[in-house]
């Protein structure tokens, strides 16, 4: 049920060193594309593979690459390694244990997109990941996989590693570009989309670490190989960061469309201490929470999760058991979004602050009957009105929990105490 493609080097001794990586068959995809010398062929195989972005939005990667305007150079490629979505920690594993895999993904993708300067924007807190990448980049330069005239092919690529400074919004692609340009991490107006006008107003491809990590495998094995897993719309394999109330939380690699039940019960050892589950947040805190019984019938792919009123997101499965107070959990999440709202637009800046204050008040036992309709109203007034998707994201836990677990809120308001704490 689990696959061992993306994580194959995890656990191998010295997996982050170039020798190990090469020994395990690394940099072969690069050799292949350089030898073939046809960037468009690389784009094509990625398009055909149906690979979708692993950063959260799930946009088909090959299609994104096709948006690059013809004949406009320089172009940039940015590897989004900000990994800020609560519950998500898969990119971290790749960067710490297989930094050369990340780099090879970047080089092959840059080659496909005719990019000569790529960037990794890494979450500021990822210290070990930063060091491993730093070391790996230096090794790759020394080995001639980066820099001028890569492996005698005539292809040049510079790769810069940049650390973020602790803002979740800087994972949003346009805010990330602002930050890379040395500006305040504010999202920018779209259109123009980054592929048309991104970093320094040049065409720019932004992809998640895991997305790019998939590319060398697809290049080596072909799109049919990739499509052996998953569904038509959700092909391939995916890393899931499982956290919360399971026996063995961690990062797991499974084919898309694996039943949630299999992941939670078989792979992660089931509910922690056998306490029954209450809710699942299947794709990171920005996706709607689902009642556990409903979730257990669903599969981990884009379509199936949509059917149960949620989303695959970044593949961060947060498992919540019955001993957890959802009001408190949602208040915590609301606090996160309030803290991370960049402040650019009114609905998100004011709405997240307001929601957080109301939720805290309910938590304190000072809730009022009118608070629930008010919260839902605020959600409506943020969703679809904010400048960037952070506002929409902030709404998801609040709205889905009130809609699907309203009784807990009502108990809180009525009894002025928590339903689970007793």
């Amino acid at each position: 049920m689990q696959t061992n493609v993306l994580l194959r080097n995890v656990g191998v001794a010295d997996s982050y060193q170039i020798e190990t990586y090469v020994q395990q068959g690394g940099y072969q995809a690069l050799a292949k594309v350089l030898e073939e010398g046809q960037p468009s062929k690389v784009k094509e195989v990625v398009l055909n593979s149906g690979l979708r972005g692993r950063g959260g939005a799930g946009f088909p990667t090959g299609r994104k690459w096709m948006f690059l305007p013809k004949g406009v150079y320089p172009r940039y490629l940015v590897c989004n390694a900000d990994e800020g979505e609560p519950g998500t920690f898969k990119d971290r594993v790749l960067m710490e244990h297989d930094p050369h895999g990340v780099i090879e993904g970047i080089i092959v993708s840059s080659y496909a997109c005719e990019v000569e300067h790529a960037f990794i924007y890494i979450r500021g807190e990822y210290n070990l990941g930063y060091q491993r990448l730093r070391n790996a980049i230096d090794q790759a330069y020394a080995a001639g996989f980066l820099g001028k005239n890569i492996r005698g092919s005539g292809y040049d690529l510079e790769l810069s590693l940049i650390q973020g400074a602790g803002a979740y919004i800087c994972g949003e692609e346009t805010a990330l570009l602002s930050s890379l340009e040395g500006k305040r991490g504010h999202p920018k107006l779209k259109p123009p989309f980054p592929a048309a006008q991104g970093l320094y107003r040049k065409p720019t491809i932004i992809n998640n670490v895991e997305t790019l990590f998939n590319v060398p495998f697809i290049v080596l094995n072909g799109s049919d190989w990739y499509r052996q897993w998953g569904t038509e719309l959700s092909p391939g394999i995916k890393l899931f960061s499982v956290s919360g109330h399971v026996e063995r939380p961690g990062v797991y690699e499974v084919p898309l469309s694996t039943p949630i039940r299999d992941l939670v019960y078989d792979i992660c050892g089931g509910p922690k201490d056998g306490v029954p589950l209450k809710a699942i947040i299947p794709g990171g805190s920005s996706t709607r929470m689902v009642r556990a019984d409903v979730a257990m019938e669903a599969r981990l792919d884009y379509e199936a999760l949509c059917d149960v009123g949620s989303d695959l997101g970044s593949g961060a499965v947060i498992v919540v058991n019955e001993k957890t107070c959802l009001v408190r959990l949602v208040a915590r999440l609301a606090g996160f979004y309030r803290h991370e709202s960049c402040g650019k637009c009114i609905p998100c800046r004011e709405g997240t602050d307001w929601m957080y204050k109301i939720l805290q008040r309910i938590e304190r036992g000072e809730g009022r009957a009118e608070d629930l309709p008010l919260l839902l109203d605020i959600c409506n007034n943020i969703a679809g009105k904010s400048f960037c998707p952070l506002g929409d994201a902030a709404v998801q836990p609040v709205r889905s929990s009130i809609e699907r677990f309203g009784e807990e809120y009502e108990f809180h308001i009525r009894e002025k105490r928590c339903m689970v704490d007793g």
Partner: protein
Amino acid sequence: MTTDRMVHLTIDDQEIGCPEGWTVYEAATAAGIHIPTFCHHEKLVPVGACRMCLVEIEGTLGLQTSCTAPVREGMVVRVHTSPRAVEARRANIEFLLTNHPLDCPVCDKGGECPLQDQALLDGPGNSRYVEEKRHKSKRYPLGEFIVLDQERCVLCWRCIRFLDEWAGDHELDLFGRGAGTRLTTFQGRPLTSKWQGNTIDICPVGALTSRIFRFEARVWELTNTPSICPLCSVGCNTFLGVKNNEVRRITPRENPEINDVWVCDKGRFAHSFVDHPERLTTPLVRRDGKLEPATWSEALDVVARGFKAVLDQDGSQAIAGLGSTRVSNEASYLFQRFVRSVLQTNNLDHLERMPSGATPLQSLPNLEHRDVIVLLGADPSTEAPLVELWIKKAVLRHGAKVIVINPHKIELSRYGGPWLGYRPGSGLALLNSLMRALLDTGLRDRTGRATNVDEVRAWLEPFGPDRVERTTGVQAAAIRQAAELLAQAKQPIILYGPNWLLEGPAGSAALLPTGAPSEQRAGLVRPALDLVANLALLLGGVEAGFVPWDHNTLGALEMGVAPDLYPGQQPVTDNRVRSRMASFWGSALSPVRGLDFDGMMVAAREEGLKAMWILGADPARHCRVAGNLLGQIPFLVVQDLFLTDTASLAEVVLPATSFAESDGSAINLTGRLQAVTAAKYPPGQARADWWIITQLARLMVPPKQQRAWAFSSPQHVLDEMAKVLPGYRNLDRAAMLAGGWQPPRPQEAQRRVFTRVNAVTPKEDPEYPLVLCTGRLLYDRGALLHHAEPVQHVVPEGYVMIHPGDAGQYGLADGDGVSLVSRAGRLRSTVRVSDEVAPGTVFAPLNVNDAPLSVLFDDRWTWPRVQVVK
């Protein structure tokens, strides 16, 4: 980007056509459909941040911000007919108000606040917000002029974007994030931008308030009268907000030809001189050696008798009038008419005269489309700030390059264009050299229209950039770089200022008496002007515009306050013109050219000048020599706002009105005639210039000439000006009031010949090794600003700027107290070491020290050579 193609769309069921490239917001606004906004401002690049302007656009998911959505053919937009969009906007105001302090009763913006208006129009009636409001700083001074109320700030970014996009001063920004976002400056440093006041106007709430106006009045208590700023030659259009007969606030009045919707901080904040307690409020007459208050009839009687006595005993040659570049056209016109027809003399002049041959700039907005701008002895940032704003527009939006040719760097040097920092006195050699370098570039044959290109090549032979390096102190590479830029330029323009005129062979300062006869003076300015014309011709006949310093520099000349020129710059020696004037004025006129100011001072020295009337000028303050000489004139009459240095020397002092207290007109640097309207009553017995002159004339002229002085308002004076001045026949008063009227420009003959200009090498003087140059600061202690306390806080102490190399050589360090010593005098100052001044040159700003810099100038009025000693 707007194109000519029209797009058709439907907004709220209304069919609308508008140019392609407009936004939905613009189309709706043009069609009279109101869409509320906060972050959007028509003068700023849209950012779509606040989400206030959400509308529904058929065929798109969700709501769209109309301020950023471009119109498309066939688009169907719903603003007020979409319940979703209406609800979203209502909700947005609700969001904003959750943490807004709602202290409208004490907020300066109350009454003209977009948030108030929109809350009323579209907002919810009551608040659902029961949580504690966020607290931030209520009184956060951002700089000398502005206080920020962080609680009121809606974080719309307008202020930041204005400073970025227009002023190029990235001083404000947002800090922190989310609900904790605050507007402030980097590291809390005070704002320095000279444009900061504009942020108050465009702030959609009362977050930014003027420290000068704050809590002075509710806006609805102000009477706003259209006016013109009197503080520089641009003449920005303004409103004077008056309450209880005091000017409380100045705000810009839109004029796309001049100031767009902006005004500089000097114009906005430096108005308190108008209501200053030291304003003269009664006439003063000298009795027993002391100036004592008198009534108007007493004072005018003394003046009339004084002038008559001189006329009777010494004749009209013993009398003179000195006008001003700061008073209205009506005052200047009547003043010269009085001096000519009543005092019977052409002894008339004004200081800082625009030299004949200097051409005014054609248009301010056109500056935006210049790709290379040459600033020759001109510093628009301090001398005519709006000119700077238009130049910055050219630079910031279209990438124009600025070439600075000036002994010291100026603010516009910041854009990295070449700086040709020449040693004062070597400017002619430098410009010759620039022309030589230009010819060397090949110039892509721009010189076609000139007839003597080969000659000029020969003349310029000795001016190779390497050869002038030593005399000018300018590196050959910089000259070549400037030449290269100019050779590539498609739309270059040259702007030159009064300081450039001092580069004549012996130097000459129009503002300072030389003792030389005026013909010679004109000869001294000539070469500097010829060189400008040569350069313009070499570039293919491009525009070269003079940027004067004072408000009505063009008016003083055009009204004929000059020894050689009647109104309309017609020569006094022309018999036909003279007889026309004589018939207009009902009096015979002197056929001889009069004394200019230098001539007057020579006459005063030789005791030939017995009486003089000075209107709105203070030569004694600017020149010690002149002060001494004026003191020797037996009957001196001075008309001014304050008891100036010159006024204290007078027999009679007449209290005049300021620009805020009388109707009149002025001509700005592009030649636009603009109306100034009285916004308040004058203090005490102060009277308008036209009234004073008229009254005096009536006392002096014989009965049959009384009718010629029957003016009862400045409008009557303007009526006569319209008849007398060539080109004013079609004067359009409505236009004059609305945005200025442009008289037809005289057809300039296209120059086709280069004029040979020989550059003299300034003499070295080992004892006084450095050359002093001066210049203006934006805020100084000049005549009016001196009485405007709020801006006095930002006037620096006097200083002398010296190049680090020179400082090292003479053992000087930053902050050292020093004496500036020339052959003429000495002055205390403080050293500023900076590479913003050329080696061998020192720069000291005018009008900041108590002792004027003129003590250092000798009779010849070249830039003085000095030594700097501890």
